[in-house]
């Protein structure tokens, strides 16, 4: 499974990555984390605000930090 964090490096993006890593650990899912920091690459997704969370190339959230439970649900769904 591939998890992408979209964001130019602001504190919110770092926090999203932390929450997402915790979620993957709690769910017991092996995932590869990719940070997308270039604005052109970020804009390839239908996103309006950073940070964005992409699981297996599907945009799950943008402009906010989802709760850990939400991310766990998405991860299980994508498995």
């Amino acid at each position, binding site marked *: 499974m591939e998890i992408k964090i979209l964001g130019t490096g602001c504190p919110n993006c770092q926090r999203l990555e932390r929450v997402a890593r915790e979620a993957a650990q709690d769910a017991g899912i092996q995932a590869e984390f990719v940070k997308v920091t270039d604005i052109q690459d970020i*804009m390839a997704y239908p*996103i309006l605000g950073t940070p964005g969370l992409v699981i297996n190339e599907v945009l799950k959230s943008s402009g906010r930090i989802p709760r850990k439970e939400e991310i766990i649900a998405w991860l299980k769904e994508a498995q």
Partner: protein
Amino acid sequence: MPEALQYAVYLLQSGLGNLASYLAAHVLLCLLPAFFIAGALTALVPKEAVTRFLGRNTPKYISYPAAALAGSVLAVCSCTIVPLFAGIYRKGAGLGPAMTFLFFAPAGNILALAYTGVAIGGDIALARIILSVTFGIGIGMIMALIFRKDDAQHDLETNGMDVKATLHRKTLIFLLLLVALLIAGTLKVGLLTNSYATITLPISGMDRFQSFLYQLVPFDGAKGEEGVSAQGAILIGLLALMGLTAWRGLGKVDEGFNRWTWVSLGLIALTFLTAAVGMVPHAGGLDILLTGKMFGVALSMVAIALVAWKAFDPYDIQEWLWETWRFVRQIFPLLIVGVFVVGMVRRVIRPEWIQALAGRNTFLGAFAGVFFGVFMYFPTLVEVPIAKMFLDLGMHRGPLLAYLMADPELSLQSILITSKIIGPKKAWTYVALVALFSTLSGLIYGAWVDGASAWVLLAYLAAAIGALALALTVIDRRNRRVATAPAHGTE
């Protein structure tokens, strides 16, 4: 002491004095609530509630005002400005509204408005918001017209802004209560500034402490300088304590409420109350004046706490506090350095220079303001103390507004980012338009200050915008006819 050293000490003293009086006078009741509002806007308002009005198929009379609204509500930090700008341009309403958004965001957000209003004057804050909305929309429309061919290309792409989300009523009430806290603390009307009761605390020595402070930080009231009162010194102490506890208490609140969270929230409430009462030290003790302001601030704080407790999820409140602290940590240190440096610089600049260049409301004066604004880069909000310095040194309010309009809109950094997204040709057209319109706003506002009737000026402004809108509509209609009619045509 050698003269040079003496001068250095003098400059240092001015810097510290400026910083202390700013911390004591402006920061607490104005900036602190504004930071909490900015945090709430980021954490609690879903972006889609505004951006769904920015889709491709939205009519112009909705998308342009919505873009301005997005600028003031959603874009408090550069983290959001750039992606949102690119999003509106590429996937949403197109170049025009994107430019409106870019123009309005730095001038129309709650932090800039509250700070301008309190530090310089409500009239400038109001002029700043009215003129940035009108010119923001105007610049957006002109850009859309000039580059309409490029823009038409984007129409082929899909509409990515159809997500539905609404603002909850509890969020709206919460935001209004925070605004009430800001207004109760800063509005200067009799109801709020009058004192309704006095308590005398038997603390002796406060009057000597205050005159010691006045000696330590000398000031000249005639030049618009402020000293540090005993109350100011207490507040600065509280502010420092707040910063220390918030580091642990609010900085780590995303992992859950901890002991420090409660300590720092308590300190914040205490500081608000201390800042809202009046304090008069005298030989017999310390008089505490219970002002209308204090009751207003106390009432709003109780209401905010109640709504936060009853209506919101603890997670939402954690998010709110965390975002607020993030803004403070991001903006406040630079602001402190900026105010300190401004305090030193104002000693070096001769008032005659400013008065000769921009002492009256002339084209040259307004242009000088804009020129300085474009080529100097200052961190977020530092433009405000700089403007205050110019005002104290004798700058006319017209050129001052021109400077205030141009400075946060344009900097080398923002021009580079903009041109990366929309291309250098469009970016430099935008720069030229901003310079032109900022000069114009300075002149218009300056004329109003000098006594021209507000209604006449507003009529001119409305007529200019009306003519622009009409011209754009006509051209737009004709383009559409040209585009649809010759299906077998050349293009």
